[in-house]
C-alpha cells in the first residue's frame, strides 16, 4: 500500500540492470527470503528489491546449531545453505511473483553448471525478476566459493545461465573474487551486474569452553566490521567498470552506511545481518535518512551520488 504513496518518489528510485527499484535498498540473500510471507513483510517494510535465500535443486538441511554468533562488532554464520529445494521453493516464488511488486531476485546455488541452469530455469518460470548466482558462500563444501574459486567453471556457469535467462543475472562475489581481472571475466561471460560482497570465511572460539562455537567451525563474517572491505571492493569495481550495475552489501547498518556504499559506487545497497539488531525498521530508517540527506544537499536524485566519492 505504502508502495505508491511513500516509496515511489522519484528522488530515491534507481535502475539496476533494467530493474526499477523504488529505492536503493535490497534485502540480502539468506535473510528472511525463504518464504512468500516473509518476503511480503520485507516489501511492506520498504525494501526496493528482495533477494531470496539461495536455492539449490535438492533440499538441504543445513548445519546443526550453533549456526550464528553475534560477536558484538559483527556476525558470524554457518547456516549451510538450508533450503527446501527448488520444487518446494517454487510455490513460494510463484506466490511472491504474483503478490509482491518489489523486484524479486532469485539467488541460485549449484554444485555444477547443470544444477545452476536447472534452478535458474525454474526460478524464471516461477516469475522472478532477476537472478543472482551464489559463487561466494564461504563455508559449504561443493558450493559457493568452492565453485567461485574455479574461474573457468564460474565463467561457464555464468554463460550457461545467461543463455537461458531473459532477466538480468548478477554474479555474487566474495572478497577473493574482487579483482578487476576476475570481475572482467564475469562480465565478459554474460553477467549483467555484480553483487559484492558475500560473507568472509571466519571462525570464533570460546575461551570459556575452549571449543569453536559454530558446529561447522568455519562460517562467514558479516556486519559492520566488514564494511570498510565492502567499500574498497565496490569503489574498485566502480572505478574499473564505470557502467557495471553493482549491488553493494556487507556491513550496512543504517542510512550513513548505505550512503557510503553508494558514494563508493553501488547502484543499490544490500541489507543483511543488521536486521538482527535493527529488525525490519532498518529499511525505513535508510530510506528516510537518504531522503533527508538529498533534501539537505540539493541533489535531485540518489543516482547523482553513485560513485560520487570517486570524483577527485
Amino acid at each position, binding site marked *: 500500500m505504502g508502495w505508491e504513496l511513500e516509496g515511489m518518489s522519484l528522488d530515491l528510485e534507481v535502475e539496476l540492470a533494467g530493474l526499477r527499484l523504488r529505492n536503493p535498498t535490497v534485502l540480502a540473500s539468506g535473510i528472511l527470503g525463504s*518464504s512468500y510471507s516473509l518476503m511480503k513483510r520485507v516489501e511492506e517494510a520498504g525494501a526496493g528489491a528482495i533477494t531470496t*535465500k539461495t536455492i539449490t535443486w535438492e533440499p538441504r538441511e543445513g548445519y546443526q546449531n*550453533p549456526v550464528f554468533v553475534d560477536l558484538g562488532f559483527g556476525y558470524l554464520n554457518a*547456516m549451510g545453505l*538450508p533450503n527446501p529445494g527448488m520444487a518446494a521453493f517454487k510455490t513460494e516464488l510463484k506466490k511472491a511473483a504474483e503478490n509482491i511488486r518489489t523486484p524479486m531476485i532469485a539467488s541460485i546455488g549449484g554444485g555444477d553448471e547443470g544444477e545452476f541452469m536447472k534452478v535458474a530455469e525454474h526460478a524464471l518460470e516461477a516469475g522472478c525478476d532477476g537472478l543472482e548466482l551464489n559463487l561466494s558462500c564461504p563455508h559449504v563444501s561443493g558450493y559457493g566459493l568452492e565453485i567461485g574459486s574455479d574461474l573457468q567453471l564460474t565463467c561457464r556457469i555464468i554463460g550457461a545461465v545467461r543463455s537461458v535467462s531473459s532477466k538480468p543475472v548478477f554474479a555474487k562475489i566474495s572478497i577473493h573474487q574482487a579483482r578487476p581481472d576476475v570481475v572482467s571475466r564475469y562480465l565478459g561471460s554474460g553477467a549483467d551486474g555484480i553483487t559484492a560482497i558475500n560473507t568472509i570465511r571466519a571462525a570464533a572460539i*570460546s575461551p570459556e*569452553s575452549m571449543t569453536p562455537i559454530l558446529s561447522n567451525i568455519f562460517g562467514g563474517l558479516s556486519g559492520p566490521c566488514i564494511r570498510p572491505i565492502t567499500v574498497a571492493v565496490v569503489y574498485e569495481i566502480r572505478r574499473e567498470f564505470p557502467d557495471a550495475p553493482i549491488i553493494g552489501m556487507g556491513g550496512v547498518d543504517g542510512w550513513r552506511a548505505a550512503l557510503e556504499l553508494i558514494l563508493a559506487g553501488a547502484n543499490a545497497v544490500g541489507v543483511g*545481518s543488521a536486521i538482527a539488531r535493527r529488525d525490519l525498521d532498518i529499511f525505513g530508517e535508510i530510506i528516510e535518512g537518504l531522503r533527508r540527506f538529498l533534501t539537505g544537499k540539493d541533489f535531485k536524485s540518489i543516482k547523482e551520488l553513485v560513485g560520487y566519492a570517486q570524483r577527485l
Partner: protein
Amino acid sequence: MSYRVGKITNIRSPTNSIKEYEIILEDPIEPEPGQFAMLWIPRVGEIPLSFADAEGEYIKFIVARVGKVTSRMHDGLAIDDRVFIRGPLGRGFRQVSGGRVLLVAGGYGLAPLYFLAKRLKADGCGVKALLGFKSDEDIFHQEEFGRFGEVEVSVEHGLSGYRGTVLDLFRGMVRSGSFDKVYVCGKEELNLAVSRECLRVGVPVEASFERIIKCGAGICGSCSIEPLGLRVCKDGPILGGEAIAPILEADES
C-alpha cells in the same frame, strides 16, 4: 552478544522425562516470562529453552528429554557444570495487572507459565492453572503452581485429577466467563484450539509457539510460522489470538 556462562547449582528429576536445572549466571539478565534463551552445550548443540524462572543471577530451565541435546543434558550434566546461554530472546507475555487469569499447560509447556504465574501473582492477579499430562507418572510442578493460585491437573490415562485432555478441562472452564485473560503453552494443536475457543468467547489469549530455531536473531527465517511470516524467535514466541487468527480460521475445517 556472544554467550553468557552459567553454572548449574541444582538439578531435580521430577519425572522420568523431565529435569529442572537451576543455574547461576556470571552476569545477571532480566528475562520476561515467555522469553527464551539459546542454551549451548559445546560440541553437542544449541537449543531454545523458555525461562521457567529468573531472579538476579538465578535462572531455571525445565527440560523434557526429546532428542540429541536434551538427552545429553539429562544424561551428562551435573551440578557445577557450566552451560552457555544467549538471551533473553523473543517477546514475552503481555502481562495484565489485576483480574483473573487462566493458564493452560500441556506437559513441559508449564515452564514459561510457572514464571508467568509467579509474576502475575506478584502483580495481584488471581491465577488458576490447568496442567495437562499423559499419565499419573508424568505429573510435576503441581505444588509449585499451588503457591501462586489454584491448580487443576488432568491426565489422559490415570487416576489423578481430571480424566481427559487439558483441552477438555479448559473448555469446561472458559465458558464460565470469569477470566480476563488466558495464557497457553503446549503442543501446537492445544495452542490453536485454546486460542480459537478464546476468540470465540471473547477472552484475550496468548500462546507460546515452537518452531526449529536456528539463528535466534530474526534473520534466517527458519522459525517462521507459515503462512503468517511471524518469526517465533523475534515476533514470538508469544503470540496473541489476533495475530494468529488467520491460521485459526484456516485450521477450523
